[in-house]
């Protein structure tokens, strides 16, 4: 095993050195190397590789453009660290360790761990569920350090900060990047605390990537986050771009902003600002004060489905729409299957949106949390639906969450205003029923015509 890893490491480094030397000449040849490297085993992703080969050999392709921009827009040392920590440790090497642990312990082992260093935030945005936690809770440096140390033993090299505003703890975040220099850290942030000094520290540690929250253009962002926030976000992006540091964006789509936040104009702007990835999140009616009317309608969600797929074929940006992209990851990835969430109180939640737990990291090891009844219920229940356009045990399959909470006795971990599973799930029943027909049509269409690569809309237009 260790020997296999040294071979992987050496091979990967040789491959990277080759790419780095002359990216223009060597990116198109990348797949020859990858094919040789991957072999023909069952875990060698043959279809994915074939699809990737198709795009990478064409310099006009948007994916080629995105990969090429890693060499023009990103600092050389940061790029190297990203390849090493994310691709090599986080995936190639980490995956094997995770798989072994999955088999040995019979439970989910995540690929990434999301955690809230603090519940504090410097902004007070309308309707923020994180704000409901209040601002007194923190995971200490030693606690986070311990989570990461335990995680690495299970093959987890990717850590994602949420909150609260993680950057409130910026010195601790840099210290953790430094201590765990073999891991890749991502951070959901409002970006208002990213200044020149912090960007210099990012350049020093090389393994910290912000995912900046935006609500759309200036009016929409300031409307929810406060006056002047949009300009601060743009300034932060400029600072990062100047230093050739990678970053992406995180957007929550609702019935109110969906059209503008998924418009081509907005996506083009993200590329222009320098974002390398854009992650979209469906609004979730979580919390006693949630506004269920902000959940997108089936028509709106279908529009999102079509648009993101179209951009993925045309824009040099890595777009993910988590609620609609279940087909690429086999449905729900929460409950430790690919990720879990630890809040600022140490509660280990199955998902950033599902705050029902029977474990706290201050009382149990990470592995024991993964073996707790709630996580095992996720493990045994996944996928929650064969149709991966209905992946979630809460949003599209609310009875599944009701059942898991009842069976395991998991408690609400919302410290401000605990919400019963029934209260939460009742808000999803109508949504789930309404979405069902569209989800079935899109799923059948997307799958009966195999890998046609067209959206239903395109398909219909093509006759």
């Amino acid at each position: 095993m260790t020997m296999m890893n040294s071979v992987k490491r050496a091979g990967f480094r040789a491959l990277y050195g080759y790419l780095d030397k002359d990216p223009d000449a060597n990116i198109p040849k990348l797949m020859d190397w990858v094919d040789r490297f991957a072999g023909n085993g069952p875990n060698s992703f043959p279809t994915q590789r074939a699809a990737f080969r198709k795009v990478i050999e064409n310099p006009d392709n948007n994916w080629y453009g995105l990969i090429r921009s890693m060499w023009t827009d990103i600092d050389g040392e940061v790029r190297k660290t990203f390849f090493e920590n994310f691709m090599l440790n986080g995936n190639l090497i980490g995956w094997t360790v995770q798989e072994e642990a999955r088999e040995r312990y019979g439970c989910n082992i995540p690929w990434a761990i999301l955690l809230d260093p603090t519940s504090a935030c410097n902004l007070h945005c309308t309707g923020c569920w994180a704000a409901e936690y209040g601002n007194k809770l923190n995971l200490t440096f030693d606690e986070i350090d311990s989570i990461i140390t335990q995680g690495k033993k299970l093959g987890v090299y990717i850590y994602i900060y949420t909150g609260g505003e993680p950057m409130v703890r910026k010195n601790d975040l840099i210290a953790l990047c430094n201590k765990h220099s073999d891991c890749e850290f991502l951070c959901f942030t409002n970006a208002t605390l990213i200044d020149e000094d912090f960007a210099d520290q990012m350049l020093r540690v090389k393994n910290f990537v912000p995912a900046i929250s935006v609500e759309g253009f200036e009016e929409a962002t300031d409307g929810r986050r406060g006056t002047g926030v949009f300009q601060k976000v743009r300034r932060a992006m400029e600072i990062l771009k100047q230093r050739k540091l990678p970053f992406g964006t995180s957007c929550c789509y609702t019935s109110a902003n969906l059209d503008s936040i998924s418009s081509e104009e907005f996506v083009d702007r993200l590329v222009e600002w320098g974002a390398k990835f854009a992650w979209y999140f469906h609004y979730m009616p979580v919390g006693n004060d949630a506004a269920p009317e902000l959940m997108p309608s089936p028509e709106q969600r279908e529009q999102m489905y079509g648009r993101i797929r179209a951009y993925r074929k045309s824009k040099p940006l890595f777009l993910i729409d988590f609620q609609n992209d279940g087909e690429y990851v086999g449905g729900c990835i929460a409950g430790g299957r690919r990720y879990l969430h630890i809040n600022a109180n140490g509660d280990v939640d199955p998902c950033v949106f599902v705050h029902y737990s029977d474990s706290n990291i201050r009382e149990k090891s990470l592995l024991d949390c993964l073996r707790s009844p709630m996580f095992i219920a996720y493990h045994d229940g996944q996928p929650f639906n064969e149709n991966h356009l209905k992946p979630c045990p809460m949003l599209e399959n609310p009875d599944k969450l009701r059942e898991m909470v009842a069976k395991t006795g998991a408690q609400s971990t919302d410290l401000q205003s605990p919400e019963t599973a029934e209260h939460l799930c009742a808000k999803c029943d109508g949504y789930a029923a309404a979405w069902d027909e569209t989800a079935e049509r899109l799923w059948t269409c997307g799958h009966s015509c195999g890998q046609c690569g067209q959206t239903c809309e395109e398909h219909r237009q093509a006759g």
Partner: protein
Amino acid sequence: MSKSTKNQIMTALAELLQAKRLDDITVTELVEKCGISRQAFYYHFSDLYGVVDYGIQILLDELGAARPEEWRTAMERTLTLLREHRTLVLNVYRAYERSYVESHVRRWAAPLVEARTRLAARGYGVTEDQIGFMTDLLTQGLASIVLSWVEQGMPSSVIERMDDFDILVGGCLDYTLERLAQKNKK
């Protein structure tokens, strides 16, 4: 705050190294001695090796850049300085892989040797590639002398040995440059 904290950590580690080896020292012990938190330590360094690297870099910076004409004195200054920090250097030597120590020594030696080579090569018709080749070989020579010296516990006699090395380098360069220039003409 940052530079002084880094130096404070480095000084404390140097003190601990008087009594025990690097492998036997923990970060917790070091931060207690400094009166700082673990996170303050990790803000600056990934591990104890990082502190040692920083210490060595400070030593090298202290030496500053030498002019090519002074390379003989520059070598002597370095060796004298390393001897003054004998405990630190010997600890590094014991704690690290030899190849790692060698890379540090070469990082120090290469610019010095290159400057010396370029000085000698003035007026000769030799290529960049040939200068690189001579620099590499002579850097390796200097690095091995320094490493063997550390291995032997850093006796003072090496300072005299530097005179001989200087003569050797001078002779090598003159002879080789002459021959290479002739070869290039053909």
